[in-house]
């Protein structure tokens, strides 16, 4: 066993010698591995950093927050039926369900309703009508000015809190607080600017305008009741299931759903949203991992190819080594170690490049900072080494089985 250890140490020494003797060629040989590992690490670090950040956000939100949304099954949606949560539903929940607080209605305006204007500049954005309690549930803090309060909502004041991106979108110069922007043709006074959140998968999280809920309802007019989302906080986390059941019964009665029909709404906890999110991250990582796996495979074939050339090129050296007393196993081990060493080196370079690329991407896109989990490091090294082993075995066996006399005569 100590003999094998000795041989491995000597093999590594000679592999290093041979790899650095042809530095540039070794680099090109292992480029496939470098790129493969770098892309794994870049992708994983960005996704993981992002995921860690999201988890943190959900943690801030607490596990005791419930979101109630309307839900229309696909089939019915195709038939033109649309389920709806209404202001009445909101009031029912707010006043009839015990053990909840910060019950917040939210209505979103899209498309032609969401045109915003400021001094001749026109654009569109996501318009969110919500109550003052929205701030507590979603941890939105104004960077400047203030969030709207209960009285803004009660007296239907025309005030707005802008996402920071709106500033540049509408080219607002100077202090925005106190200025007026038009939403859907009506003028609103800017009372606050929200904190910057950055981009998420290319979506600007700062492109929104928050309006008081009552004002937004009035803006939409009484023609059609808008579909709203209701968020609320459960005071006692242990009461979560009871509260859910209570809301469910209430809404079913309110919507006049007969026994046996499905709910036309969904009640989701932050935990469930987190689970869904984790699932998305997991499958994204898996798909990307698969693609990268293929690129590592191609890299491995590249390594095998160059190793085979290298064996031919060094036929005479192998003959000399055999004449000096190298056994088949010595030669096999030497080439195998060389392949593995080359791949591990590629893996290391790839790791550094990948982390660099991940950090760069995070910085440029405003995503949370990249983190490389330990499993990704272990996996990419393991994979690189494994590829060296698998694709090194054929060239190494070819070298080991050379006939010493033929090898010595090889020109």
């Amino acid at each position, binding site marked *: 066993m100590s003999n094998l250890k000795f041989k491995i140490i*000597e093999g590594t020494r000679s592999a290093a010698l041979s790899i650095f003797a042809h530095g540039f060629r070794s680099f090109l040989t292992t480029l496939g591995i470098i790129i493969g590992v770098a892309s794994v690490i870049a992708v994983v670090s960005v996704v993981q950093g992002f995921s860690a950040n999201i988890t943190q956000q959900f943690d801030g939100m607490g596990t005791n927050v419930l979101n109630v949304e309307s839900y229309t099954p696909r089939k019915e949606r195709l038939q033109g039926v649309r389920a709806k949560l209404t202001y009445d539903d909101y009031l029912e929940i707010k006043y009839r369900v015990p053990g909840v607080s910060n019950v917040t209605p939210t209505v979103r305006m899209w498309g032609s309703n969401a045109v915003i204007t400021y001094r001749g500049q026109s654009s569109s954005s996501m318009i969110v009508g919500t109550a003052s309690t929205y701030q507590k549930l979603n941890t939105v803090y104004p960077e400047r000015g203030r969030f709207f309060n209960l009285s803004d909502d009660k007296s239907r004041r025309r005030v707005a809190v802008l996402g920071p991106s709106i500033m540049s979108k509408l080219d607002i110069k100077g202090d925005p607080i106190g200025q007026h922007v038009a939403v859907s043709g009506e003028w609103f006074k800017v009372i606050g600017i929200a904190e910057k959140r950055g981009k998420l998968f290319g979506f600007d999280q700062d492109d929104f305008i928050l309006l008081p809920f009552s004002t937004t309802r009035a803006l939409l007019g009484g023609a059609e009741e808008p579909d709203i989302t209701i968020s609320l906080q459960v005071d006692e986390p242990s009461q979560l299931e009871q509260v859910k059941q209570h809301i469910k019964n209430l809404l079913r009665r309110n919507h006049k759903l007969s026994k046996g029909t499905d709910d036309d709404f969904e009640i989701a906890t932050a935990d469930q949203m987190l689970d869904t999110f984790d699932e998305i991250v997991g499958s994204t990582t898996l798909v990307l991992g698969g693609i990268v796996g293929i690129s590592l495979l191609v890299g491995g074939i590249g390594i095998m190819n160059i190793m085979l050339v290298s064996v031919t090129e060094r036929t005479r050296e192998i003959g000399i080594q055999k*004449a*000096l*007393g190298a*056994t*088949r196993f010595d030669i096999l081990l030497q080439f195998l170690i060389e392949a593995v060493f080359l791949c591990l080196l590629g893996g290391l370079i790839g790791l550094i490049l990948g982390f660099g690329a991940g950090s760069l991407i995070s910085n440029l896109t405003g995503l949370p900072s990249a983190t490389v989990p330990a499993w990704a490091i272990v996996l990419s090294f393991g994979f690189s080494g494994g590829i060296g082993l698998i694709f090194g075995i054929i060239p190494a066996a070819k070298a080991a089985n050379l006939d010493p006399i033929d090898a010595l005569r090889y020109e």
Partner: protein
Amino acid sequence: MSKQTIIELRGIAKHYMMGSEGFYALDGIDLDIYLNDYMAVVGSSGSGKSTLMNLLGCLDLPTAGEYKLKGTDVATLDETSLAGIRNREIGFIFQNFNLLPRATALQNVMQPLIYRGIALAERKQRAQDALAMVGLQDRMTHVPNQLSGGQRQRVAIARALVTEPAILLADEPTGNLDSSTTVEIMALFDQLHSDGQTLIVVTHEQEIAERCHRVITLKDGRLMSDQANKVPVKPLVSGVAAHV
């Protein structure tokens, strides 16, 4: 005084197939080689010199006959044991030196000791000693293409000697060298012989053969003659002393 036998060849034959025709590269060689022999193997090309060399060096096995090296029948050994024999008992010296091109003189000489499992520090010490013995103590960090032909061959000799082999097998050792370097190398061989080393030199140069103490002649794979030279022989070229 009875001489100690190192190598015993009995009825050694090597048969090759060339297409559909077979021929004997060696055909019934009987030969004993003794401790501290200084033997030349001569013969025209195709006479079987190189084949004999490969067999003696355990790079190849005979198709018939018996080869005993220090009493061990080589035919009974597997590939790994043959590698061990090449490592411990045989020192090869080739016409084209066969040094590892990327390795320094020192690394080249250390190489066979790796296969013997000797630790780095001792390996280095022994390789330095061997290089000093052939007069290359100040060329240790040079790679082969920074060395002259004579220096390369001396590195090869140091590499062959560093394992303290039972026999030194030199295949046309001076074939690629000019005449004055040839003299140097042969003087080195003389020195090794007088230190007790067993040497076998394959050559087609009459001057080299005359230098050895025993000459065997091969022709068409058969042993034609086995003669002792009258020693000491005359110097190859005048002024040898200046080179030694």
